[in-house]
């Protein structure tokens, strides 16, 4: 079980800020594939991964990173702080 969080326009496309996801995905890419096939809104949100960033347990990570031991995954667009 993973806590999956969405921010900014990813959150708007998915339609909710967070959800619990039952998955055996080994990597972030695997998780994205799983979500994409679920519902149209995921397919839309995850259409272009180059426009997305991912954090694992609140640390920036790559899409090929392993999900082993991870409890929280967050998807969001490139950050615009400052």
């Amino acid at each position, binding site marked *: 079980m993973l806590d999956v*969080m969405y*921010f*900014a*326009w990813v*959150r708007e496309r998915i339609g909710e800020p967070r959800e619990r996801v039952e998955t055996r995905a080994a990597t972030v890419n695997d998780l994205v594939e799983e979500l994409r096939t679920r519902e149209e809104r995921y397919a839309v949100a995850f259409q272009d991964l180059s426009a997305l960033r991912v*954090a694992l347990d*609140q*640390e*920036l990570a790559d899409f090929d990173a392993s999900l082993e031991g991870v409890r*929280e995954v*967050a998807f*969001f*667009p*490139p*950050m*615009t*702080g*400052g």
Partner: protein
Amino acid sequence: MTVRVQTEDFDLSAELADFAKGRTDVGARVSFTGVVRDVEGGLDRMEIEHYPGMTQKAIAAMVEQATLRWELADCLVIHRHGPLRPGDQIMMVATAAPHRVAAFESAEFLMDYLKSRAPFWKKEFGADGSCWVDAKDEDEDALSRWE
């Protein structure tokens, strides 16, 4: 070293009034303040979303990096989230160091990382509707200076 993430405004004057004051090993203090701009005159407000669990930690890690890289006497970062109007203060960075180069460079380093690596997202609301502010290539490029 202080990091604050908050919705409330901050008083730059009050923050700087006591910042690293009275220390005789500090020759240079630099501050940066980011303000909401209304370039085309149509901006009603901006809303800044953030990732509560990650924001404070991410900024603290940047401050930690800065203290490893430069000889800093003190460092302060305040970043707001929530709704903001044109002219409102968004955030501030202050650095204090023995020498001016360290004070300037560390403040720029923190700004460059805050821009592209702190989990904030800006949405602008105007007469024509709303839109998320895109990250700029030049902001991403600015990071290469520190690698």
